[in-house]
């Protein structure tokens, strides 16, 4: 699972939908793999405004990545700065979680990740 996807995922439990602590999900005991993906600057520019930067900083910290700048780069900055573009590409798209689990900050539900596939099936009483 890509770090970009993790930036969009929230807890699926109904009671957690209204609380702010259910996002982002916190990775726990994660094994990371790096997968080479052809760089796609246009895609990054498209998703940049939708990335929750604060959540990304938290996730990157928890996964043990070097600290990110406190504010997101603007479209123009990212367009002109090729180094930042490749770094973001490596972090968001090429870094993938293969094993481990995601924990909701509100209810503490653990979503297992196996072979890169997260299990978001819930028992009926939580839906």
């Amino acid at each position, binding site marked *: *699972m*890509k770090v*970009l*996807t993790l930036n*969009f*995922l*929230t*807890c*699926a439990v*109904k009671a957690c939908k209204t609380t702010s602590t259910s*996002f982002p999900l916190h990775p726990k005991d994660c094994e990371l793999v790096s997968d080479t*993906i*052809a760089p*796609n600057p*246009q*895609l990054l520019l*498209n*998703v940049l405004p*939708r990335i*929750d930067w604060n959540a990304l900083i938290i996730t990157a910290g928890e996964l043990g990545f070097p600290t990110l700048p406190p504010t997101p780069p603007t479209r123009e900055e990212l367009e002109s700065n090729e180094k930042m573009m490749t770094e973001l590409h490596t972090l968001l*798209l090429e870094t993938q979680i293969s094993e481990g689990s995601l924990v909701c900050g509100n209810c503490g539900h653990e979503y297992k990740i196996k*072979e*890169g*596939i*997260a*299990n*978001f*099936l*819930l028992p*009926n009483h939580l*839906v």
Partner: protein
Amino acid sequence: MSRPEDTLPPDLHYNDAEARKYTTSSRIQNIQASMTNRALELLDLSSPSMILDIGCGSGLSGEILSSIDPSAGGPHIWVGMDISPSMLDVALQRDVEGDLMLADMGQGVPFRAGSFDAAISISAIQWLCNAESSEVSSTGRLSRFFNGLYASLKRGGRAVCQFYPKNDLQRTMISGAAIKAGFGAGILEDDPGTKNAKLYLVLTVGGSAEEGTGGDITGVVKGMEDVDVLDARKKHREKGRREIKKGSKAWILNKKEQMERKGKVVKNSSKYTGRKRHITF
């Protein structure tokens, strides 16, 4: 023709053998590919986007999403949801590029608001009409799914869901649930009246700023050739506006029809109905 929906829930129906059969059959591959291309045409994406694939299965449709040429606005990045572990296993073996998740669409779409540019679903959402246990209902599953999907799409985003309804009831149930969630919804039917008719539920979120592209399905198909638009809303509006003069023959016939529908005994209509009586003296 037998429907897999009638036999078993999706996570059990698509077991290892069935998943392999589904993915290796060249006939299914061809049909899936043509439906995915048609759905992409309806989505009309001009630049690389973030797409949600609902019921991605073994990634047959996702493969097409990630292989689109840069000149045609691709390649897109996608996240796939499916309930069948065996299907996802096949997808892993095929080494697809998108992210996969084991999730039940009837339990909602676990993404934060405005995550995706578009959503695509090929032959999946008719499964929502089945409730597998007494704790869930099909209407509940449908509304949870469409509410979640509505929230996770960005404003001006679109979703195209190709589906196989069992009958007209399921068709209206699905489109009704989508409208209730707030979507602008419409159904596009390819090859209507034939055995291989394909239904696409085209959903739009909010009106987009560009003229002619937002609103609903009539904006989506504008400019496409060979598409007949049957707008039931307009017909209804026109019918309401046409005034019938009180006391006229048409008015009387209309009233008689109303009464008959209520189950009242109504005299037969003839050429004399609504005529004035002659003055006899």
